[in-house]
């Protein structure tokens, strides 16, 4: 069953917790990331609105936290996400939740 990471980036505040939680879980050195934060903006839009978004994407070093998942825990990034905007699970389940703007589903190996 293909696993995925669903991110609702209406709410990602760009706090870097996912990067640090992943690093701590896997004991990666400070320059190695299993998940990496991206950003867009700030860009002015019409009617006084702004585009200013953050969202993380898993890297080649993401192992889906198989260790944690096998113990019924959430992946480190998902549990610690301060905005609670990430979900892990089967791609088919998560895909059904892609109903709002600013959501993204990453498939994992």
């Amino acid at each position, binding site marked *: 069953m293909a696993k995925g990471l669903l991110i609702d980036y209406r709410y990602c505040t760009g706090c870097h917790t996912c990067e640090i939680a992943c690093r701590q879980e896997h004991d990666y050195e400070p320059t190695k990331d299993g998940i990496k934060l991206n950003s867009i*903006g*700030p860009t002015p839009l019409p009617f*006084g609105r702004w585009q200013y978004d953050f969202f993380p994407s898993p890297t080649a070093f993401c192992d889906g936290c198989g260790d944690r998942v096998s113990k019924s825990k959430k992946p480190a990034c998902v549990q610690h996400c301060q905005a609670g905007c990430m979900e892990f699970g089967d791609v088919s389940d998560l895909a059904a939740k892609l109903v709002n703007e600013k959501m993204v589903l990453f498939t994992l190996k």
Partner: protein
Amino acid sequence: MELKSDQSGRAWKWEEDGYTVYRSNSRTGPGCHDNCGILMYVKDGALMKIEGDPENPYNQGRLCPRCLAAKEMIYNPDRLLYPMKRAGKRGENKWERMTWDEAYDYCEKKLKEVSAKYGSESISVTQGTGRDINGYGPRTAKSFNTPNYMPGFLSGFGCYIPRLVSTGFKLGDFVIADYSQFFPERYDDPRWTPPSVIVIWGNNPVVANSDGTLGHWIVECIKRGSELIVIDPKLTWLASRAKYWLPVRPGTDAALAIAMGNVICSEGIEDKDFIEKWTANFEDYKNKTLEYSPEKAAEICGIDKQLIIEAARLLAKANTACLQWGVAFDHSSEGFLTGMAVMDLVALTGNIEKPGSMVIGRPCFGVTDTWNPPDDVRLEDEEQREKILNHKYPALRAIGVISPDSILDAIETGDPYPVKALWMQTNNPLACMGADPKRILKAFDNVDFIVVVDMFMTPTALAAADVILPAASFAERIGLSGHQPYYLGAIVKAIEPLGDCKSDPQIIYEIGKRFDPEGNPWNNDEEFYNYILGKGNLPIKYSELREQTWKYPEFEYYKHEKGLLRADGEPGFNTMSGKYEFRCEMLAHFGLEDLASYSEPPESPVRTPELAQKYPLVLTTGARRWGFFHSEHRQSPSMRRLHPDPCVTIHPETAAQYGIKDGDWVKIENHLGECRMKAEFFAGLRKDTVSADHAWWFPERDPEDGTFFGTFESNINCLVPMRPGKSGLANSCKSLLCRISKAD
């Protein structure tokens, strides 16, 4: 083996995959004013990792980068491990190691010498904000028999206190925004509803998490429909999600607040019922708001008039609203008035004691020491108490609040008496809390004996300490959660202290014993905290609290209607009149302004146009950064990677005027001083304003290079004066003038 609590069924310590896991509330050092629930994984006596505790209602398993990476600070090779005595001159990195007994002997001797020669009032005890000694540090001052306990060299006591003084007298209590954090069931508790509107004014809560509020609680409210009004010269992420973003000129917030009151009153959309039943002197306030029309405020604040009107209407018409206010209020010269003016809007719209509004919180189970100095640490001798240094500020004298500015004056001039010893615990004024730090360093020449208690060799320790005492991190000690009125919690020790480190309270009562053995009877931290808990109204010992990790009291809304706030049990607020006082007579009685007004910052394009010719940009400072808590975490590799260099945020068009490119090193200067930072382009910032980081020093530097870890090179406080507002409260940190040029 599982150790379970009978009551909660929740273990506080267990074995898991070869680890011993401890459930705790994190605290400091290092870190912030929150108490996030954590699980500490220990193997062979070493802390291997920290995770968030999914069962803790406060953070529900989530955690910020600093706590996750706390090992980098706890096991940092630069940790202070042993008491040390200076072996060379101040500023030279020459130290002799001492045992604790030797250290206490030496400190006792030197402090008693100073007392004998100058009087014990000439000792000043200081704290910063990096470790949780708010309620315990004053014991040191009492032990030394000095009335002079201060936030070390924080001009105008400019941190929360100006806001609390102005609003405390008007309402009689401490209020905080309700994001369901008073209930263990949190957002699912049926008694709570999300605020319809959240006003975020003068702070960036998701980064700052200030004053006992976890900023991401606001994100949970956004998910549940809360709308935001954000007042900030910079487009924060929250501002990008706001219904209205008001990018005010720094320092003009009071004008905006009064004008919003003007709109609400003139459109008749104030909460008339609440005002009639529960407030006093409304007419005085209403008349005052006539002085600031939306047009006038728009001109002062540099924003669109229509924004002011729409934001005011949204606030007034909201079912419930709460205010997330920040230290920016305390960081404009007459910030005392800003807090007052904004709290008036809360009362005007009846947003007190409703679910999702501003609610009154008091110390849980009567345990006050964790966040407030208790009464039993006041000096008994009234004459000695009266020597508290605040002599230039009658209002501060009247309310018994100290003036760090007066202490600096006394050090420099000996007037009204000299200050000849400093005990500085969790305080790094040369890098962080002190404005005009070069002036402070020079003043230290007049101080005979300086003790610094900290976790790392800070610039202050290196430049000024005669004795250094090593403090423990949160993982190495027990304690109580605090600085918030939501629950009583245990800080749990997971590892033995590194080296000879001791917890801050242990240092406090151990040095205290040398001066006042009866006043410091405790022999270990458990005895100390049992004493603290015993002063409350719950018969619980620390070890029992640790079993359940947290304990929530019952929380009620509408306490003013139920007679739960006043000593006489009558309905009403805990003020003389029983009402929220729009015009507060107590304030007038103390010689403070009793009605909010607006005062231009002392240096501004409007007040000092000639100065503004030379220094044309408005300077705000100290916007919080992910991964840092003030001057901490610069030595933590993962945190430093998030933000490697000191930065000044600047609009690209403004930068272009000065030939500055993104990432260029620039010189920021004003009439007081200068520093160097990297330009950080940001389109979401007022074009007339630049925003400079604070608290930068460089722990990676050679401590012997004479620069004290470069503490003056990128220290924006070189441009900030030690100068409080008229009352003696608040300072100008976030509303100054400067100019920028490309650095060589």
